[in-house]
Structures are given as structure tokens and as C-alpha cells.
């Protein structure tokens, strides 16, 4: 028994995966697959590494890791660059864009146009501001009436409480769960309620192109194991949360549990299977970027992703 395991361990294919960020519930499936031995069963020995801030994509592109977590919007920048990064999205972690705008409940910012006259904490990014402008327009609001203030906190709830700003871009699976955990009275509305174009894939699993070309089977094996992990997380959120916290004890166990609960229904959601990337939805967002002049060169709206490694 022991011998077999160590033998399989030595024969295992070594893979590295770089996270997009600090470990969080977006990554639960991967930690589950790691912890429950799904990767080992596929003959894969996976190393999960944390990235330097905003450095994950470059590392995937440079091939110093084979795999990583990225986002469709972030990938757009790299793909539309004059020196594009050689990488491809091979699966969606969460089916829909789960981000939106959170605010204090008493301010009544329940829809985009209600942001008028309020302070919005901006990350100062063109894509981000274009999205706000976009949903404001859809909702009949005037973007110029929003007061932009720099985003300078880590804790959106604390920022709202201290009146550092009135509304802020958040991920429902994390900051919003934090708010309800703290019994903070908030309002929240998602972007996708106002514009379908903004229903892009965030986050995604991305892989180095050369790796994909040379090791298609390994990539498929990896995705198989990963899918099992996310399926487990979807059906056993509290166990999955426990596994994540065991692997990363610095995380707040309560927040992880609550977030896992929320995300359980979001990993697969309405898709046929975990990880599937809808061609039209992908293209619609990239078209929107092209239309709004948010990329350096015009994007090939059908490029940058594949479902080939899912099966």
C-alpha cells in the first residue's frame, strides 16, 4: 500500500498552479481535489503557489507555472497587448459574474441610478469605470453625478461603516457575506441585472499554451480532478469550507463557511457541467470591450478560451 503510493507519487506529473489572489472560496474545489487525493488519482502532483500582486498572469504566460487562476477581463488586457501572453482560459470557476455594488441600506442605493450624488470608491481602472457608466446608462442614471473617491480600504464593510464612501464594487461571495456575517445592514445589486454583456467569466482557470499543446492529456486529467473538487464543494459546502480552512488556517472560518454556502450554488449554476464557457457570453463581453475602446488593440472576440480540456 505504502509502496504503491510512493511509487505513484514519484511517477506523478508535477504541475504548479498559481492563484490569482490570497486563497479564498473561489479556490475551494482545487483545495478539495488536492486534499481528497483527486489529483493523485489522476497521477498529478499539484503545487499551489500564491502570486505576487497582479503577477499571476505573467507567470502563467512565461510558463513558470502551467496553470493558474485569472479573469476574463484581466485576460483581455494581456491578449490585446502588442506582445500577447501565450495562455488560454480552459474552464470557468464560477458560471456567472457574481459582482455588484454594495452600499449602506439606509442610503437606498438599490439600483445604479441611485448612485447619483453618492461617493463611489473607484479602483481607478478604465474597465471598471466603463462598467459603472454602462449600467448607469442602462438604468437611466447620469454617471457624471457620481462622486469618485479612491478605493483605499481592504474591508468594504468597514469602509461603508466609516463613511469613507457610499458604494463600492464587491464580490457577492465574499464582501457581501462578510456584511451579513457582521449584521451590517446593506444594499446590493449585481451588474448582470442591468447589462448581459457584463456577465463575463470571473474567475477562470487559465493554462499556458505550450503546456496545453504538449500535454493535452495531463491538462484533461487536471480538469477532471478539479471538476470533482468543485462538484464536491457544490454539494458539501461545509465540508469543503473545512478543508479550505485546514489548508489555509489564516482564513476566517466563519466567513469561509458562509461564503462556501453561497458559492455552492454558483460554481455550476445553470451550466451543463462545471467549467463550461459559453462562446456567446465570452464573445459578448469582449465585443463590449472593443466597442467601448477599452483595449489596446481590437480583441478577437472568439479567442482566449476553450472547452476542449473539460471532457
Amino acid at each position, binding site marked *: 500500500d505504502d509502496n504503491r503510493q510512493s511509487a505513484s507519487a514519484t511517477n506523478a506529473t508535477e504541475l504548479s498552479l498559481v492563484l490569482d489572489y490570497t486563497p479564498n472560496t473561489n479556490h475551494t474545489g482545487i483545495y478539495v481535489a488536492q486534499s481528497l487525493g483527486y489529483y493523485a488519482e489522476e497521477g498529478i502532483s499539484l503545487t499551489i503557489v500564491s502570486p505576487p500582486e497582479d503577477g499571476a498572469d*505573467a507567470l502563467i504566460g512565461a510558463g513558470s507555472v502551467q496553470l493558474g487562476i485569472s479573469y476574463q477581463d484581466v485576460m483581455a488586457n494581456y491578449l490585446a497587448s502588442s506582445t500577447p501572453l501565450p495562455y488560454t482560459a480552459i474552464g470557468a470557476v464560477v458560471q456567472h459574474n457574481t459582482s455588484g455594488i454594495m452600499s449602506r441600506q439606509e442610503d437606498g442605493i438599490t439600483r445604479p441610478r441611485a448612485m447619483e450624488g453618492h461617493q463611489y470608491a473607484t479602483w481607478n*481602472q478604465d474597465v471598471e469605470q466603463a462598467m459603472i457608466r454602462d449600467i448607469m446608462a442602462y438604468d437611466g442614471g447620469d454617471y457624471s453625478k457620481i462622486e469618485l473617491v479612491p478605493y483605499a*480600504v481592504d474591508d468594504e464593510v468597514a469602509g461603508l461603516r466609516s463613511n469613507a464612501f457610499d458604494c463600492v464594487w464587491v464580490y457577492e461571495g465574499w464582501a457581501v457575506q462578510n456584511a451579513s456575517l457582521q449584521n451590517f445592514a446593506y444594499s446590493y445589486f449585481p451588474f448582470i441585472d442591468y447589462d448581459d454583456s457584463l456577465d463575463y467569466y470571473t474567475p477562470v482557470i487559465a493554462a499556458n499554451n505550450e503546456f496545453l499543446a504538449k500535454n493535452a492529456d495531463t491538462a484533461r486529467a487536471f480538469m477532471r480532478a478539479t471538476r470533482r473538487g468543485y462538484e464536491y464543494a457544490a454539494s458539501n459546502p461545509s465540508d469543503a469550507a473545512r478543508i479550505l480552512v485546514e489548508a489555509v488556517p489564516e482564513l476566517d472560518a466563519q466567513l469561509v463557511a458562509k461564503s462556501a454556502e453561497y458559492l455552492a450554488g454558483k460554481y455550476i449554476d445553470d451550466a451543463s457541467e462545471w467549467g463550461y464557457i459559453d462562446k456567446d457570453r465570452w464573445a459578448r463581453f469582449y465585443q463590449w470591450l472593443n466597442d467601448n475602446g477599452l483595449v489596446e488593440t481590437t480583441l478577437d472576440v472568439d479567442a482566449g478560451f476553450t472547452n476542449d480540456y473539460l471532457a
Partner: protein
Amino acid sequence: MKHAPSDTTSRKAKRIGIPLAVVAGTIICWHLAIISGLVPNFLMPTPLQVAQALASDWQLLASHAGTTLVEAAIGLAAGVALGFVAAVAMDRFEVIYLALSPLITISQTIPTVAIAPLLVLWLGYGILPKIVLITLTTFFPVAISLIAGFTSVDPDTVNMLRSMGASRWDIFRYAKLPEAADHFFSGLKISATYAIIGAVIAEWLGGDAGLGVYMTRVRKSFSYDRMFAVIIVISALSLMLIKIIDILKKICMPWKHTERNE
């Protein structure tokens, strides 16, 4: 050693030529590293690409640089003033020395990100929290160097002044301060080097103008060429500041004839 210093034109040429040559050499190596494929071009632009970015973004960079320079200048001035006052007080009163020592060290070990929300809460989004952060960064080397300088005075010189009825202030002015000048300028050189980059980091706190803001924006949109362009601007401003300090030192310490006794 004791000859008339022969700062001939050839020597002057050396003083300007060598640094330029080194910078030029660095740029060439950088170029070669990329075209040889040692560094992938998508991670690092060539010097030429950076130059193009510099040229095309020139006006924007200049206006951001203005903001950063103002912050850095005010912050450095405040930091030096604070460092000076702290050092003098700590030299003068042992109680203050013992009391402030740990606080000063602690102040240098608190990461900006941790207190950024508090700073913004208290001081708003304007220039103020940035200046506070730059001041906090730059006062430290000055204070430490000055304290070391003050204590390096020959006690006999102090005795000589005391025998003339010199007050503590006189002793400070005529013995401690000039004696500490050497130390002070090395502290100042360290602080000045940190001033511009300190301003850039402070601008990551958030804000609408400044090289730090520009840098975050181009970084988040993954324009490596423009990111390296702004790094070059930061380095150039820092080198300029250091040069000014060097000149200041020469003016303030005329009794040190030669800079280096080669």
C-alpha cells in the same frame, strides 16, 4: 594628500562621464537581455518601447510627476524637520530619548497598508495622508544619523565651550551640530532617496494624481512599457534630488575641502 586639488577638466569629465556610461551600459544590457530572449518581452519592454511610451505619455507623466514632486518635497522637508527636532530633543533629554526610541522603531515597522484606512478616515483623500506617510518614512534615517552625530562630539570641545560660559544651545550650535553634519547628510541622502518612492507608495493609498496613481493604472491595465516609463521617471527624479543634496552638502560644509581623500 595635501597638494592643491587638481580638479582638472579631465577629472570633471570623469565625474560626469562614468555615471553616464554606466547608465548607458545598463540600458544596453537590458536591451540585449530582451532581444536575446533571456527575459520575455511580454514581461519587460525594451528600452526603445519604454522610450516610446515616455514620449507619447510625456505630458501626462509630467503633470503626475509634478504632484508627486510636491508631495515628496513637502514630506521630505517635514520629515527632515521632524527628524531634526526629535534628534535634538532626544540628545538633550535622556528621558525623551528613552521614551521615543521604541516608538520611533515601532513607527517604522507598521506596514502602510495596515494603517492606510485609518489615515484616509482621519485625513481624507487629499495630499495630507500622503505627506504623513512620506514624513514617517523620511524622518527616521535623519533622526538616527543625527543622534549618532551628536554623541560623536569630542567631550573636550564641549569642555572648552563650557569654560567660555556657553549655554547648551551654544554647545549645540558650535560643536554638536557641525560635528553631526557628516552624519546628517548621510541620513539625508538615505531619506531623499526614499522620498520620491515613498510618495509613489503613498499614492497607492488612492488619489487622482501622482506617479503612484499613474503607475497603478498602467499596471492594472498591464502596460508594461508605460510602467517602466514611470519607473524611469521615478529614478530620474530621485537622482536629481540626491544631486541637490550633494550640492547642498558642499555648500554647508565648506571646511571639508575635498569630498573624497583618494
